[in-house]
Protein backbone atom coordinates (compact mmCIF):
# COMPACT_ATOMS: atom_id res chain seq x y z
CA UNK A 1 0.00 0.00 0.00
CA UNK A 2 2.63 2.50 1.02
CA UNK A 3 4.54 1.66 -2.18
CA UNK A 4 1.55 2.46 -4.34
CA UNK A 5 0.58 5.59 -2.42
CA UNK A 6 2.94 8.05 -4.19
CA UNK A 7 1.70 6.79 -7.58
CA UNK A 8 -1.93 7.17 -6.58
CA UNK A 9 -1.39 10.69 -5.28
CA UNK A 10 0.67 11.54 -8.36
CA UNK A 11 -2.06 10.30 -10.70
CA UNK A 12 -4.67 12.26 -8.74
CA UNK A 13 -2.55 15.41 -9.00
CA UNK A 14 -2.11 14.95 -12.77
CA UNK A 15 -5.83 14.34 -13.23
CA UNK A 16 -6.84 17.33 -11.09
CA UNK A 17 -6.88 20.12 -13.72
CA UNK A 18 -9.01 18.04 -16.09
CA UNK A 19 -11.72 17.64 -13.48
CA UNK A 20 -11.43 20.99 -11.80
CA UNK A 21 -10.31 24.03 -13.73
CA UNK A 22 -11.15 27.17 -11.83
CA UNK A 23 -8.34 29.54 -12.87
CA UNK A 24 -7.64 31.10 -9.48
CA UNK A 25 -7.06 27.93 -7.41
CA UNK A 26 -5.04 26.51 -10.31
CA UNK A 27 -2.96 29.67 -10.37
CA UNK A 28 -2.31 29.28 -6.66
CA UNK A 29 -1.33 25.65 -7.16
CA UNK A 30 1.11 26.57 -9.94
CA UNK A 31 2.72 29.18 -7.71
CA UNK A 32 2.85 26.75 -4.79
CA UNK A 33 4.42 24.05 -6.97
CA UNK A 34 7.08 26.35 -8.45
CA UNK A 35 8.05 27.64 -5.02
CA UNK A 36 7.90 24.12 -3.58
CA UNK A 37 10.41 23.07 -6.20
CA UNK A 38 12.55 26.08 -5.29
CA UNK A 39 12.44 25.34 -1.56
CA UNK A 40 13.14 21.67 -2.23
CA UNK A 41 16.19 22.75 -4.26
CA UNK A 42 17.39 24.82 -1.33
CA UNK A 43 16.81 22.03 1.16
CA UNK A 44 18.81 19.57 -0.96
CA UNK A 45 21.91 21.28 0.40
CA UNK A 46 20.40 23.08 3.38
CA UNK A 47 19.66 19.82 5.18
CA UNK A 48 23.37 19.03 5.40
CA UNK A 49 24.09 22.17 7.38
CA UNK A 50 25.11 24.05 4.24
CA UNK A 51 22.90 27.05 4.87
CA UNK A 52 23.18 29.19 1.79
CA UNK A 53 21.72 32.68 1.68
CA UNK A 54 22.89 32.98 -1.92
CA UNK A 55 19.97 31.15 -3.46
CA UNK A 56 18.17 34.45 -3.99
CA UNK A 57 21.08 35.29 -6.27
CA UNK A 58 20.87 31.95 -8.09
CA UNK A 59 17.17 32.41 -8.68
CA UNK A 60 17.72 35.95 -9.98
CA UNK A 61 20.45 34.91 -12.40
CA UNK A 62 18.34 31.99 -13.62
CA UNK A 63 15.34 34.20 -14.28
CA UNK A 64 17.20 37.14 -15.83
CA UNK A 65 19.57 35.13 -18.03
CA UNK A 66 16.66 33.20 -19.53
CA UNK A 67 14.62 36.35 -20.12
CA UNK A 68 17.56 38.35 -21.51
CA UNK A 69 18.54 35.58 -23.92
CA UNK A 70 14.96 35.45 -25.15
CA UNK A 71 14.48 39.19 -25.59
CA UNK A 72 17.91 40.16 -26.90
CA UNK A 73 18.98 37.06 -28.81
CA UNK A 74 15.59 35.42 -29.50
CA UNK A 75 16.93 32.25 -28.01
CA UNK A 76 14.15 29.92 -27.00
CA UNK A 77 13.92 29.20 -23.25
CA UNK A 78 14.36 25.53 -24.15
CA UNK A 79 18.00 26.42 -24.78
CA UNK A 80 18.04 29.53 -22.60
CA UNK A 81 17.12 27.70 -19.41
CA UNK A 82 19.93 25.13 -19.68
CA UNK A 83 22.34 27.99 -20.40
CA UNK A 84 21.02 29.86 -17.36
CA UNK A 85 21.48 26.73 -15.26
CA UNK A 86 25.05 26.39 -16.49
CA UNK A 87 25.75 30.06 -15.74
CA UNK A 88 24.35 29.66 -12.24
CA UNK A 89 26.31 26.46 -11.68
CA UNK A 90 29.43 28.35 -12.74
CA UNK A 91 28.69 31.23 -10.36
CA UNK A 92 28.02 28.72 -7.59
CA UNK A 93 31.35 27.05 -8.36
CA UNK A 94 33.10 30.42 -8.22
CA UNK A 95 31.70 31.13 -4.76
CA UNK A 96 31.51 27.68 -3.27
CA UNK A 97 34.85 26.21 -4.30
CA UNK A 98 36.97 28.70 -2.34
CA UNK A 99 34.49 28.54 0.56
CA UNK A 100 34.83 24.79 0.84
CA UNK A 101 38.53 24.80 0.04
CA UNK A 102 39.26 27.28 2.84
CA UNK A 103 36.68 25.69 5.13
CA UNK A 104 34.34 28.62 5.39
CA UNK A 105 31.45 26.91 7.16
CA UNK A 106 28.42 27.67 9.30
CA UNK A 107 27.53 31.32 9.64
CA UNK A 108 30.63 32.43 7.73
CA UNK A 109 29.32 30.47 4.76
CA UNK A 110 25.88 32.00 5.22
CA UNK A 111 27.35 35.51 5.22
CA UNK A 112 29.59 34.96 2.17
CA UNK A 113 26.66 33.59 0.19
CA UNK A 114 24.56 36.47 1.48
CA UNK A 115 27.10 38.76 -0.18
CA UNK A 116 26.40 36.91 -3.42
CA UNK A 117 22.67 37.60 -3.32
CA UNK A 118 23.37 41.23 -2.44
CA UNK A 119 25.73 41.49 -5.43
CA UNK A 120 23.23 39.95 -7.84
CA UNK A 121 20.56 42.36 -6.62
CA UNK A 122 22.89 45.35 -7.07
CA UNK A 123 24.12 44.21 -10.51
CA UNK A 124 20.58 43.73 -11.81
CA UNK A 125 19.61 47.14 -10.46
CA UNK A 126 22.76 48.86 -11.70
CA UNK A 127 22.67 47.37 -15.21
CA UNK A 128 19.40 49.15 -15.83
CA UNK A 129 20.07 49.73 -19.53
CA UNK A 130 19.99 45.98 -20.01
CA UNK A 131 17.64 44.74 -17.30
CA UNK A 132 15.29 47.64 -16.72
CA UNK A 133 16.69 48.08 -13.22
CA UNK A 134 14.28 48.14 -10.33
CA UNK A 135 11.33 48.73 -12.66
CA UNK A 136 11.42 45.08 -13.61
CA UNK A 137 11.64 43.14 -16.82
CA UNK A 138 9.14 41.39 -19.06
CA UNK A 139 9.91 38.65 -21.59
CA UNK A 140 8.49 39.59 -25.00
CA UNK A 141 5.24 37.88 -25.84
CA UNK A 142 5.38 35.53 -28.75
CA UNK A 143 2.46 34.37 -30.82
CA UNK A 144 -0.06 35.98 -28.47
CA UNK A 145 1.59 34.54 -25.40
CA UNK A 146 0.88 30.94 -26.26
CA UNK A 147 3.70 29.00 -27.83
CA UNK A 148 5.67 25.90 -27.01
CA UNK A 149 8.72 27.42 -28.72
CA UNK A 150 8.72 30.42 -26.37
CA UNK A 151 7.58 28.41 -23.36
CA UNK A 152 4.67 30.79 -22.90
CA UNK A 153 1.19 29.49 -22.24
CA UNK A 154 -1.99 31.35 -21.48
CA UNK A 155 -3.94 28.45 -20.04
CA UNK A 156 -3.38 27.43 -16.47
CA UNK A 157 -3.71 23.69 -17.07
CA UNK A 158 -0.53 23.51 -19.15
CA UNK A 159 1.36 25.49 -16.55
CA UNK A 160 -0.01 23.34 -13.79
CA UNK A 161 1.23 20.19 -15.52
CA UNK A 162 4.66 21.72 -16.19
CA UNK A 163 5.02 22.88 -12.59
CA UNK A 164 3.80 19.53 -11.31
CA UNK A 165 6.33 17.69 -13.49
CA UNK A 166 9.23 19.88 -12.40
CA UNK A 167 8.20 19.60 -8.77
CA UNK A 168 8.03 15.82 -9.11
CA UNK A 169 11.50 15.77 -10.64
CA UNK A 170 12.73 17.93 -7.76
CA UNK A 171 11.34 15.48 -5.22
CA UNK A 172 12.85 12.59 -7.16
CA UNK A 173 16.27 14.27 -7.17
CA UNK A 174 16.11 14.81 -3.45
CA UNK A 175 14.88 11.26 -2.91
CA UNK A 176 17.79 9.91 -4.94
CA UNK A 177 20.28 12.07 -3.05
CA UNK A 178 18.84 10.76 0.22
CA UNK A 179 19.55 7.21 -0.92
CA UNK A 180 23.02 7.78 -2.35
CA UNK A 181 26.53 7.58 -0.96
CA UNK A 182 26.62 11.36 -1.28
CA UNK A 183 24.17 11.62 1.59
CA UNK A 184 26.33 9.56 3.93
CA UNK A 185 29.40 11.54 2.93
CA UNK A 186 27.65 14.85 3.53
CA UNK A 187 26.17 13.77 6.83
CA UNK A 188 29.61 12.75 7.96
CA UNK A 189 30.95 16.12 6.85
CA UNK A 190 28.18 17.93 8.68
CA UNK A 191 29.09 16.05 11.87
CA UNK A 192 32.84 16.55 11.70
CA UNK A 193 34.83 17.61 8.65
CA UNK A 194 38.16 16.35 9.94
CA UNK A 195 36.80 12.96 10.85
CA UNK A 196 35.06 12.67 7.48
CA UNK A 197 38.25 13.61 5.66
CA UNK A 198 40.21 11.10 7.74
CA UNK A 199 37.68 8.43 6.78
CA UNK A 200 38.44 9.08 3.13
CA UNK A 201 35.67 11.50 2.16
CA UNK A 202 36.73 14.15 -0.32
CA UNK A 203 35.13 17.00 1.64
CA UNK A 204 35.45 19.81 -0.92
CA UNK A 205 34.29 17.72 -3.87
CA UNK A 206 31.28 16.20 -2.12
CA UNK A 207 30.10 19.60 -0.91
CA UNK A 208 30.62 21.10 -4.36
CA UNK A 209 28.51 18.40 -6.02
CA UNK A 210 25.50 19.09 -3.83
CA UNK A 211 25.92 22.86 -4.11
CA UNK A 212 26.07 22.85 -7.91
CA UNK A 213 23.05 20.56 -8.06
CA UNK A 214 21.07 22.77 -5.69
CA UNK A 215 22.09 25.98 -7.49
CA UNK A 216 21.20 24.67 -10.96
CA UNK A 217 17.79 23.50 -9.70
CA UNK A 218 17.19 26.93 -8.20
CA UNK A 219 18.06 28.54 -11.54
CA UNK A 220 15.47 26.36 -13.25
CA UNK A 221 12.91 27.40 -10.66
CA UNK A 222 13.75 31.07 -11.22
CA UNK A 223 13.42 30.72 -14.98
CA UNK A 224 10.07 28.93 -14.64
CA UNK A 225 8.83 31.60 -12.27
CA UNK A 226 9.76 34.22 -14.87
CA UNK A 227 8.08 32.31 -17.74
CA UNK A 228 4.93 31.86 -15.72
CA UNK A 229 4.61 35.34 -14.24
CA UNK A 230 5.98 37.05 -17.37
CA UNK A 231 7.41 39.72 -15.11
CA UNK A 232 10.44 39.80 -12.86
CA UNK A 233 11.97 42.55 -10.78
CA UNK A 234 15.22 42.52 -8.81
CA UNK A 235 13.39 42.53 -5.48
CA UNK A 236 11.09 39.60 -6.25
CA UNK A 237 13.71 37.22 -7.63
CA UNK A 238 16.94 38.18 -5.89
CA UNK A 239 18.36 39.66 -2.74
CA UNK A 240 18.36 38.73 0.91
CA UNK A 241 14.60 38.72 1.36
CA UNK A 242 14.14 36.00 -1.25
CA UNK A 243 17.00 33.98 0.23
CA UNK A 244 15.57 34.25 3.72
CA UNK A 245 12.13 33.37 2.39
CA UNK A 246 13.53 30.10 1.02
CA UNK A 247 15.15 29.27 4.34
CA UNK A 248 12.03 30.23 6.21
CA UNK A 249 9.55 28.14 4.25
CA UNK A 250 11.86 25.14 4.31
CA UNK A 251 12.39 25.43 8.05
CA UNK A 252 8.66 25.72 8.72
CA UNK A 253 7.92 22.58 6.75
CA UNK A 254 11.01 20.80 7.96
CA UNK A 255 14.25 20.58 6.02
CA UNK A 256 15.03 17.00 7.00
CA UNK A 257 11.95 15.44 5.42
CA UNK A 258 11.19 15.06 1.73
CA UNK A 259 7.87 16.91 1.69
CA UNK A 260 8.89 19.52 4.29
CA UNK A 261 9.68 22.35 1.85
CA UNK A 262 6.50 21.62 -0.11
CA UNK A 263 4.34 21.87 3.00
CA UNK A 264 6.27 25.02 3.91
CA UNK A 265 5.42 26.52 0.52
CA UNK A 266 1.76 25.62 0.96
CA UNK A 267 1.56 27.19 4.38
CA UNK A 268 3.41 30.40 3.52
CA UNK A 269 1.74 31.07 0.18
CA UNK A 270 -1.76 30.24 1.38
CA UNK A 271 -1.25 32.37 4.48
CA UNK A 272 -0.23 35.31 2.31
CA UNK A 273 -3.20 34.76 -0.02
CA UNK A 274 -5.72 34.44 2.81
CA UNK A 275 -4.46 37.66 4.33
CA UNK A 276 -4.46 39.43 0.97
CA UNK A 277 -7.96 38.31 0.02
CA UNK A 278 -9.36 38.70 3.53
CA UNK A 279 -7.96 42.10 4.40
CA UNK A 280 -7.03 43.61 1.05
CA UNK A 281 -4.41 46.31 1.02
CA UNK A 282 -4.80 46.75 4.77
CA UNK A 283 -2.97 43.46 5.15
CA UNK A 284 0.24 44.63 3.45
CA UNK A 285 3.05 43.62 5.74
CA UNK A 286 0.97 41.47 8.06
CA UNK A 287 1.92 38.28 6.26
CA UNK A 288 5.60 39.00 6.83
CA UNK A 289 4.97 39.89 10.47
CA UNK A 290 3.41 36.46 10.90
CA UNK A 291 6.20 34.77 8.89
CA UNK A 292 8.88 36.49 10.89
CA UNK A 293 7.46 35.56 14.28
CA UNK A 294 6.71 32.02 13.07
CA UNK A 295 10.28 31.61 11.86
CA UNK A 296 11.65 32.66 15.24
CA UNK A 297 9.24 30.40 17.11
CA UNK A 298 9.87 27.44 14.84
CA UNK A 299 13.61 27.70 15.30
CA UNK A 300 13.23 27.97 19.06
CA UNK A 301 10.50 25.38 19.63
CA UNK A 302 10.29 23.17 16.52
CA UNK A 303 13.69 23.11 14.81
CA UNK A 304 12.63 19.93 12.99
CA UNK A 305 9.81 21.77 11.25
CA UNK A 306 6.15 20.86 11.11
CA UNK A 307 6.40 17.67 9.07
CA UNK A 308 9.58 16.58 10.79
CA UNK A 309 8.06 16.98 14.25
CA UNK A 310 4.88 15.11 13.29
CA UNK A 311 6.93 12.34 11.72
CA UNK A 312 9.07 12.01 14.84
CA UNK A 313 5.89 11.86 16.97
CA UNK A 314 4.43 9.09 14.81
CA UNK A 315 7.68 7.20 14.83
CA UNK A 316 7.72 7.35 18.62
CA UNK A 317 4.12 6.17 18.85
CA UNK A 318 4.70 3.22 16.52
CA UNK A 319 7.90 2.14 18.26
CA UNK A 320 6.11 2.38 21.61
CA UNK A 321 3.43 0.07 20.25
CA UNK A 322 5.85 -2.48 18.83
Amino acid at each position, binding site marked *: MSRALPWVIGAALVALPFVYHEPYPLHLLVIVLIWSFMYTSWSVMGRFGLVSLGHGGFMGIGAYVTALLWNDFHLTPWIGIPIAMLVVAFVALLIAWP*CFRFRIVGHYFALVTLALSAIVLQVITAARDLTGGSLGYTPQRYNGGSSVFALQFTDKTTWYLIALGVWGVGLLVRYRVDRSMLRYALEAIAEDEDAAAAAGVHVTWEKLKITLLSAAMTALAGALYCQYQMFISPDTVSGISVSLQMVFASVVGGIYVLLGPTIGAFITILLAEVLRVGFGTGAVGWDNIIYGSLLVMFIIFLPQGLVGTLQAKFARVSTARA
Partner: protein
Amino acid sequence: MPDIFDIYLIEALINGVLLGGVLALLALGLNLIFGVIDVVWICYAELIMLGMYGMFFLFKIYHVPFLLAAVLCIAGVGVLGVVLHLLVIAPLLGAAPINQLLATGGVLFFLQSAATVMFGIDFRNLGIRLPVLAVADMYISYARLLAFGAALAGMVVLYLFLARTYTGTAIRAISQDRQIMPLMGVDARRIYIITSAIGGALAGLAATLLVLQYDVHPFIGLTFGPTTFMICVLGGLGNMVGGFVASFIFAEIISVSGLYLDLEWGYVFAFGFFIAMMFARPQGLMARRS
Protein backbone atom coordinates in the same frame (compact mmCIF):
# COMPACT_ATOMS: atom_id res chain seq x y z
CA MET B 1 48.36 62.28 -15.36
CA PRO B 2 46.35 65.30 -14.37
CA ASP B 3 43.06 63.39 -14.22
CA ILE B 4 44.09 61.18 -11.35
CA PHE B 5 44.55 64.07 -8.98
CA ASP B 6 41.51 65.98 -9.94
CA ILE B 7 39.52 67.75 -7.31
CA TYR B 8 36.52 65.44 -7.61
CA LEU B 9 38.67 62.47 -6.78
CA ILE B 10 39.94 64.13 -3.63
CA GLU B 11 36.39 65.03 -2.73
CA ALA B 12 35.34 61.41 -3.27
CA LEU B 13 38.24 60.21 -1.16
CA ILE B 14 37.30 62.54 1.69
CA ASN B 15 33.67 61.51 1.45
CA GLY B 16 34.85 57.93 1.53
CA VAL B 17 36.67 58.54 4.80
CA LEU B 18 33.57 60.16 6.25
CA LEU B 19 31.37 57.27 5.11
CA GLY B 20 33.95 54.89 6.52
CA GLY B 21 33.51 56.41 9.97
CA VAL B 22 29.81 55.62 10.00
CA LEU B 23 30.32 52.14 8.56
CA ALA B 24 32.95 51.51 11.21
CA LEU B 25 30.40 52.41 13.87
CA LEU B 26 27.88 49.97 12.37
CA ALA B 27 30.48 47.22 12.15
CA LEU B 28 31.63 47.86 15.70
CA GLY B 29 28.26 47.05 17.25
CA LEU B 30 27.89 43.86 15.25
CA ASN B 31 31.46 42.80 15.97
CA LEU B 32 31.06 43.42 19.68
CA ILE B 33 27.99 41.21 19.83
CA PHE B 34 29.59 38.52 17.73
CA GLY B 35 32.82 38.62 19.69
CA VAL B 36 31.11 38.30 23.05
CA ILE B 37 27.93 36.31 22.46
CA ASP B 38 29.03 34.50 19.27
CA VAL B 39 25.82 35.44 17.49
CA VAL B 40 25.24 37.33 14.25
CA TRP B 41 22.31 39.71 14.43
CA ILE B 42 21.09 39.61 10.84
CA CYS B 43 18.45 42.13 11.90
CA TYR B 44 21.04 44.66 13.12
CA ALA B 45 20.25 47.15 10.36
CA GLU B 46 16.54 46.86 11.18
CA LEU B 47 17.30 48.09 14.71
CA ILE B 48 18.92 51.08 13.05
CA MET B 49 15.79 51.56 10.95
CA LEU B 50 13.65 51.61 14.10
CA GLY B 51 16.06 54.09 15.66
CA MET B 52 15.72 56.33 12.63
CA TYR B 53 11.93 56.19 12.92
CA GLY B 54 12.30 57.01 16.59
CA MET B 55 14.30 60.10 15.71
CA PHE B 56 11.76 61.07 13.08
CA PHE B 57 8.80 60.84 15.45
CA LEU B 58 10.52 62.42 18.45
CA PHE B 59 12.04 65.29 16.53
CA LYS B 60 9.57 65.96 13.76
CA ILE B 61 6.24 65.06 15.31
CA TYR B 62 6.76 65.64 19.04
CA HIS B 63 9.29 68.45 18.64
CA VAL B 64 11.76 67.04 21.12
CA PRO B 65 15.11 68.88 20.90
CA PHE B 66 17.57 67.02 18.69
CA LEU B 67 20.11 66.11 21.35
CA LEU B 68 17.49 64.87 23.80
CA ALA B 69 15.82 62.90 21.02
CA ALA B 70 19.19 61.38 20.15
CA VAL B 71 19.79 60.32 23.75
CA LEU B 72 16.28 58.82 24.00
CA CYS B 73 16.83 57.01 20.74
CA ILE B 74 20.17 55.53 21.74
CA ALA B 75 18.67 54.35 25.03
CA GLY B 76 15.57 53.02 23.30
CA VAL B 77 17.44 50.95 20.74
CA GLY B 78 19.71 49.74 23.54
CA VAL B 79 16.61 48.42 25.32
CA LEU B 80 15.50 46.81 22.05
CA GLY B 81 18.84 45.06 21.90
CA VAL B 82 18.27 43.61 25.37
CA VAL B 83 14.73 42.54 24.44
CA LEU B 84 16.04 40.86 21.29
CA HIS B 85 18.63 39.04 23.34
CA LEU B 86 16.20 37.86 26.01
CA LEU B 87 13.41 36.83 23.64
CA VAL B 88 15.31 35.32 20.74
CA ILE B 89 18.98 34.76 21.44
CA ALA B 90 18.90 33.53 25.05
CA PRO B 91 16.64 30.50 24.31
CA LEU B 92 18.95 29.59 21.42
CA LEU B 93 22.33 30.01 23.11
CA GLY B 94 22.89 26.25 23.10
CA ALA B 95 21.59 25.75 19.54
CA ALA B 96 23.66 25.62 16.35
CA PRO B 97 25.01 29.08 15.43
CA ILE B 98 23.20 28.94 12.13
CA ASN B 99 19.87 28.63 13.97
CA GLN B 100 20.60 31.81 15.86
CA LEU B 101 21.41 33.56 12.61
CA LEU B 102 18.18 32.36 11.01
CA ALA B 103 16.10 33.31 14.04
CA THR B 104 17.37 36.87 13.80
CA GLY B 105 16.52 36.61 10.10
CA GLY B 106 12.95 36.04 11.26
CA VAL B 107 13.24 39.13 13.43
CA LEU B 108 14.39 41.02 10.32
CA PHE B 109 11.17 40.06 8.50
CA PHE B 110 9.15 40.90 11.56
CA LEU B 111 10.64 44.35 12.15
CA GLN B 112 10.59 45.30 8.49
CA SER B 113 6.94 44.45 8.06
CA ALA B 114 5.96 45.80 11.46
CA ALA B 115 7.44 49.11 10.33
CA THR B 116 5.49 48.84 7.06
CA VAL B 117 2.26 48.27 8.95
CA MET B 118 2.85 50.96 11.56
CA PHE B 119 4.52 53.70 9.54
CA GLY B 120 3.60 52.94 5.92
CA ILE B 121 6.08 52.86 3.09
CA ASP B 122 6.52 56.63 2.71
CA PHE B 123 10.00 58.06 2.72
CA ARG B 124 10.36 60.40 5.66
CA ASN B 125 13.07 62.75 6.75
CA LEU B 126 13.74 65.17 9.57
CA GLY B 127 13.64 68.14 7.27
CA ILE B 128 16.92 69.45 8.62
CA ARG B 129 19.15 70.86 5.95
CA LEU B 130 22.65 71.01 7.31
CA PRO B 131 24.97 73.38 5.45
CA VAL B 132 27.54 72.10 3.00
CA LEU B 133 31.12 73.00 3.68
CA ALA B 134 33.01 74.43 0.72
CA VAL B 135 36.74 73.95 1.13
CA ALA B 136 38.98 74.74 -1.84
CA ASP B 137 36.33 73.99 -4.47
CA MET B 138 35.31 70.78 -2.70
CA TYR B 139 31.90 70.26 -1.21
CA ILE B 140 31.71 68.27 1.95
CA SER B 141 28.44 67.66 3.66
CA TYR B 142 28.30 68.90 7.21
CA ALA B 143 26.02 65.98 8.13
CA ARG B 144 28.70 63.51 7.07
CA LEU B 145 31.36 65.39 8.98
CA LEU B 146 29.17 65.35 12.07
CA ALA B 147 28.45 61.64 11.63
CA PHE B 148 32.15 60.92 11.25
CA GLY B 149 33.01 62.88 14.37
CA ALA B 150 30.25 61.34 16.47
CA ALA B 151 31.10 57.85 15.23
CA LEU B 152 34.74 58.32 16.22
CA ALA B 153 33.72 59.72 19.60
CA GLY B 154 31.41 56.76 20.16
CA MET B 155 34.20 54.36 19.35
CA VAL B 156 36.62 56.07 21.70
CA VAL B 157 34.06 55.95 24.53
CA LEU B 158 33.48 52.26 23.87
CA TYR B 159 37.21 51.61 23.81
CA LEU B 160 37.69 53.37 27.15
CA PHE B 161 34.78 51.43 28.61
CA LEU B 162 36.18 48.11 27.45
CA ALA B 163 39.73 48.94 28.50
CA ARG B 164 39.22 50.79 31.78
CA THR B 165 36.19 49.43 33.61
CA TYR B 166 35.67 46.14 35.41
CA THR B 167 32.61 45.28 33.31
CA GLY B 168 34.53 46.12 30.15
CA THR B 169 37.34 43.82 31.19
CA ALA B 170 34.85 41.06 31.91
CA ILE B 171 33.32 41.55 28.45
CA ARG B 172 36.72 41.24 26.79
CA ALA B 173 37.57 38.23 28.91
CA ILE B 174 34.38 36.42 27.99
CA SER B 175 35.01 37.04 24.32
CA GLN B 176 38.36 35.29 24.75
CA ASP B 177 37.17 32.28 26.65
CA ARG B 178 33.49 31.58 27.07
CA GLN B 179 33.90 28.46 29.22
CA ILE B 180 36.36 29.61 31.81
CA MET B 181 34.99 33.03 32.72
CA PRO B 182 31.87 31.84 34.57
CA LEU B 183 34.25 29.81 36.75
CA MET B 184 36.14 33.01 37.51
CA GLY B 185 33.03 34.53 38.98
CA VAL B 186 31.78 36.47 35.99
CA ASP B 187 28.04 36.25 35.49
CA ALA B 188 27.85 35.43 31.78
CA ARG B 189 24.14 36.18 31.55
CA ARG B 190 24.64 39.67 32.91
CA ILE B 191 27.55 40.30 30.55
CA TYR B 192 25.47 39.14 27.58
CA ILE B 193 22.68 41.52 28.52
CA ILE B 194 25.07 44.43 28.94
CA THR B 195 26.73 43.61 25.62
CA SER B 196 23.36 43.44 23.87
CA ALA B 197 22.46 46.81 25.37
CA ILE B 198 25.72 48.35 24.14
CA GLY B 199 25.28 46.76 20.71
CA GLY B 200 21.78 48.16 20.53
CA ALA B 201 22.92 51.58 21.74
CA LEU B 202 25.58 51.66 19.00
CA ALA B 203 22.84 50.91 16.46
CA GLY B 204 20.86 53.75 18.04
CA LEU B 205 23.82 56.12 17.73
CA ALA B 206 24.25 55.11 14.09
CA ALA B 207 20.53 55.77 13.56
CA THR B 208 20.71 59.31 14.94
CA LEU B 209 23.61 60.04 12.57
CA LEU B 210 22.22 58.30 9.49
CA VAL B 211 18.85 59.99 9.81
CA LEU B 212 20.59 63.27 8.99
CA GLN B 213 21.71 61.92 5.61
CA TYR B 214 19.09 59.41 4.53
CA ASP B 215 15.30 59.27 4.32
CA VAL B 216 13.71 56.64 6.55
CA HIS B 217 11.56 53.88 5.09
CA PRO B 218 10.87 50.33 6.26
CA PHE B 219 13.40 48.81 3.86
CA ILE B 220 16.31 51.13 4.62
CA GLY B 221 17.88 48.28 6.60
CA LEU B 222 18.54 46.40 3.39
CA THR B 223 20.75 49.30 2.30
CA PHE B 224 23.08 49.09 5.29
CA GLY B 225 22.67 45.49 6.39
CA PRO B 226 24.58 43.56 3.73
CA THR B 227 27.38 46.12 3.69
CA THR B 228 27.79 45.88 7.44
CA PHE B 229 27.92 42.08 7.48
CA MET B 230 30.46 42.04 4.71
CA ILE B 231 32.65 44.55 6.49
CA CYS B 232 32.52 42.44 9.63
CA VAL B 233 33.39 39.23 7.80
CA LEU B 234 36.07 41.02 5.81
CA GLY B 235 37.68 42.27 8.99
CA GLY B 236 37.22 38.89 10.64
CA LEU B 237 34.00 38.42 12.62
CA GLY B 238 34.48 39.66 16.13
CA ASN B 239 37.73 41.44 15.27
CA MET B 240 37.04 45.09 16.03
CA VAL B 241 40.29 46.48 14.60
CA GLY B 242 39.81 44.44 11.45
CA GLY B 243 36.27 45.73 11.11
CA PHE B 244 37.53 49.29 11.52
CA VAL B 245 40.11 48.93 8.72
CA ALA B 246 37.67 47.08 6.47
CA SER B 247 35.08 49.87 6.87
CA PHE B 248 37.40 52.45 5.39
CA ILE B 249 38.49 50.19 2.53
CA PHE B 250 34.86 49.47 1.74
CA ALA B 251 33.82 53.10 1.97
CA GLU B 252 36.63 54.22 -0.34
CA ILE B 253 35.71 51.61 -2.94
CA ILE B 254 32.06 52.66 -2.82
CA SER B 255 32.84 56.35 -2.87
CA VAL B 256 35.50 56.34 -5.61
CA SER B 257 33.71 53.94 -7.97
CA GLY B 258 30.55 55.92 -7.36
CA LEU B 259 32.42 58.92 -8.75
CA TYR B 260 33.18 57.26 -12.10
CA LEU B 261 30.10 55.08 -12.42
CA ASP B 262 26.72 54.82 -10.71
CA LEU B 263 26.51 54.43 -6.97
CA GLU B 264 25.18 50.88 -7.39
CA TRP B 265 28.36 49.90 -9.22
CA GLY B 266 30.28 51.20 -6.23
CA TYR B 267 28.46 48.63 -4.12
CA VAL B 268 28.97 45.94 -6.76
CA PHE B 269 32.71 46.57 -6.73
CA ALA B 270 32.85 46.65 -2.95
CA PHE B 271 30.93 43.34 -2.71
CA GLY B 272 33.10 41.85 -5.44
CA PHE B 273 36.18 42.93 -3.52
CA PHE B 274 34.70 41.23 -0.50
CA ILE B 275 34.30 37.92 -2.31
CA ALA B 276 37.78 38.17 -3.80
CA MET B 277 39.22 38.84 -0.35
CA MET B 278 37.39 35.84 1.07
CA PHE B 279 39.49 33.71 -1.26
CA ALA B 280 42.70 35.46 -0.36
CA ARG B 281 42.15 35.83 3.39
CA PRO B 282 39.25 33.62 4.45
CA GLN B 283 39.73 34.38 8.13
CA GLY B 284 39.54 38.12 7.60
CA LEU B 285 41.96 40.90 6.76
CA MET B 286 43.74 41.06 10.08
CA ALA B 287 43.91 37.33 10.73
CA ARG B 288 47.24 35.93 11.76
CA ARG B 289 48.43 33.36 9.27
CA SER B 290 48.33 30.00 10.92
